[in-house]
């Protein structure tokens, strides 16, 4: 156990800190979930990152990365969030499909999709859930029917984040007619502008179109866009879900930066006599630090060659709950002003906390609801019967 950074790791931190200081836009970009303009501004930022070879640092150089290890990945994320750089519009691609392609893709698929993903030229949406297949994902009904060297996709996907403006989606389809549950499912990549695809944005509780329905009506895609084999879809999705709940999707740095902002808010506007709020600020910091320490611990174990296990489910519960709690503390400091919407003329950025709080309420639901995660912990970590 050695909890200090190596000179190489410190140099890496200095390098990314310096680059971000010179490239991060002065003003926040407009939301990528509200308008096409905001979406494209974020795509342009992804291109800037890629030009600096910072798009996805853990990827091999041939796919636009730097081939660095998970500790350096965490350092990158820490500096990224510290700098206030824009959110990653392609997170479904780079954090979920990317690692999955790396593990299950053919050399041709990797060469075709990874560089375009790293550069932001192709932004990805996830097309797994259906109206009848949410927590019970194995009841997927959308079909992919083999037709020579093509599949015909039919069905309805929903709650697909970023799909309103994205270019491609990776979907879970039933390729074996009449198959039940986890069997006969296959992962297929398809462009969202293909004939037969209709995307209908869904407004979230904040009014933004962060997700969409995807209607598929005889959408023809070549077999070469199948990831893995026929019938391997469930297994691949579970590996992807591990990335989603585990290391990649929610970097601890996001919450550590938020906890630092919260402490600053308390110092500026908190009531010194309010010891309950002071303790809640300390608790938000503790939780963000605990999450970071846990992720460093997991990264160390992965680097030592140990597999990532059901602990990803504990991660997902922990970060989603700490996010809600942290933002609620901020609202309690803001008090009666907490309800105020963002106002460009308002010098004090009250509205950010409100936005972050509303967004945090999605955390316990997406990427597998926390109730599903508790089942996974109980059954796979603790060995309780199904």
């Amino acid at each position, binding site marked *: 156990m050695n909890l200090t950074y190596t000179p190489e790791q410190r140099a890496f931190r200095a390098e990314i800190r310096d680059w971000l200081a010179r490239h991060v836009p002065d003003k926040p970009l407009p939301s990528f979930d509200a308008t096409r303009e905001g979406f494209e501004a974020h795509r342009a930022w992804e291109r800037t990152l890629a030009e600096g070879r910072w798009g996805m640092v853990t990827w091999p150089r041939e796919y636009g990365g730097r081939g660095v290890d998970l500790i350096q990945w965490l350092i990158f994320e820490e500096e990224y969030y510290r700098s206030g750089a824009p959110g990653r519009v392609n997170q479904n691609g780079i954090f979920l499909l990317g690692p999955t392609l790396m593990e299950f893709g053919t050399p041709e698929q990797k060469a075709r999709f990874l560089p375009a993903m790293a550069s932001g030229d192709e932004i990805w949406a996830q097309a797994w859930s259906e109206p009848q297949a949410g927590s019970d994902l194995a009841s997927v009904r959308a079909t992919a029917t083999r037709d020579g060297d093509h599949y015909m996709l039919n069905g309805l996907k929903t709650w697909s984040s970023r799909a309103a403006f994205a270019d491609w989606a990776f979907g879970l389809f039933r390729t074996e007619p009449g198959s039940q549950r986890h069997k006969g499912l296959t992962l297929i990549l398809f462009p969202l502008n293909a004939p037969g695809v209709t995307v209908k944005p869904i407004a979230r509780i904040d009014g933004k179109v962060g997700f969409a329905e995807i209607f598929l009506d005889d959408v023809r895609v070549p077999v070469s866009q199948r990831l893995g084999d026929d019938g391997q879809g469930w297994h691949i999705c579970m590996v992807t879900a591990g990335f989603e709940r585990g290391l990649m999707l929610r970097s601890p740095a996001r919450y550590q930066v938020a906890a630092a902002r919260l402490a600053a808010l308390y110092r500026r506007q908190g009531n010194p006599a309010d010891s309950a709020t002071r303790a809640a600020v300390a608790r938000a910091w503790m939780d963000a630090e605990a999450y970071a320490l*846990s992720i460093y611990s997991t990264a160390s174990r992965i680097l030592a060659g140990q597999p990532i296990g059901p602990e990803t489910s504990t991660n997902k519960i922990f970060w989603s709950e700490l996010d809600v709690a942290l933002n609620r503390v901020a609202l309690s400091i803001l008090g009666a002003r907490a309800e105020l919407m963002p106002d460009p003329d308002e010098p004090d950025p009250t509205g950010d906390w409100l936005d972050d709080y509303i967004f945090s309420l999605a955390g316990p639901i997406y990427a597998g609801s926390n109730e599903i995660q508790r089942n996974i912990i109980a059954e796979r970590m603790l060995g309780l019967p199904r």
Partner: protein
Amino acid sequence: MNFTFTDEQKMLAEVVRKLMDDRCPPPALRSLMDAGAVHDKGRWAAIVETGLMPVLVPAEQDGLGLAEVDFAIVAEAAGRAALPEPLVEHAGIALPLLAAAAPGHTLLSAAMAGEVTVAIGHPVNPLVADADTAAALLLVHDGELHLVERDAVRLIRKPSIDPFRRLFAVEWVPSPASRLATAATAGPLLADALDRGALFAAAQCLGIAQRCVDLAVDYAKERTQFGKPIGSTQAVKHLLANVQVKIEFARPVLQSAAARFAARDVRSRAVISHAKLVAAEAADLGARTAIQVHGAMGYSWEVDVHFFLKRALALTYAWGDPAFHTARIEQRVLNHPLGPDQTFLNETDHA
């Protein structure tokens, strides 16, 4: 940056866990209690035999010179077993304090051999644990550290709800002969003792928490109601999953706190306090959840869970109560730099 244990540390964890499983299973706790005995001499001899006494004594004084990370492994196993003997207070706190305050003291070799124990009356605790079986007591008067033979003090037993904790009020008279260190010298040493006390209480709590989950899981698999094991219902699953989440996010904090002990600054101390708080919360939630999962059986003397509930209760308030540790964390959070690049930094990294 490496957050994994060495092979030696993994072996230590295995050895101590097996020692506790063999020597300190719940039936052994009950027979000790039924016999009205204070300690189990055979178990203590086996612990001494394993070489756990000198873990934190420097190599120059014939100790093993290992670190807090290593002893935290020992303390976790002791907590998991609700060990009655004073392994943690003697070997984890009193011995390194004695070795630091009085290098080469005549008592040290017998104490390292486990022939005698040393009790500690730290100002943060109102009472002294295991004072009656100790050969001598480390006591504090006006900030000075004294070593006093047990026969030279008057002990008043204060029964604890934990049947295996032996607490005493101590009446004693300090003298120049008993003084080991002046207040100036003793201050930093007592701060170390407090940090070790809090750290190893946290480690014991983590062991207690996992033991409670394990007991409840075993019961939930066996106990059937409505024609199926109660552990197959989501209501029970989610109770236990919540405890496991608490444990999973207390463990890396404990490991980090132990690894950073030697920095002895406001940052490393905040992590120790963090570990103490969340490990105690995990133990408390674990014990209460285990009782709930066991139902009426869980409320009975017959089921072992109450041993762990009581030890968790005691350790939650020993070596700094939650208010004490929360204040140390607030001091760090409100007065020192925060952010993701700060997690592993010490004060001196900014000098």
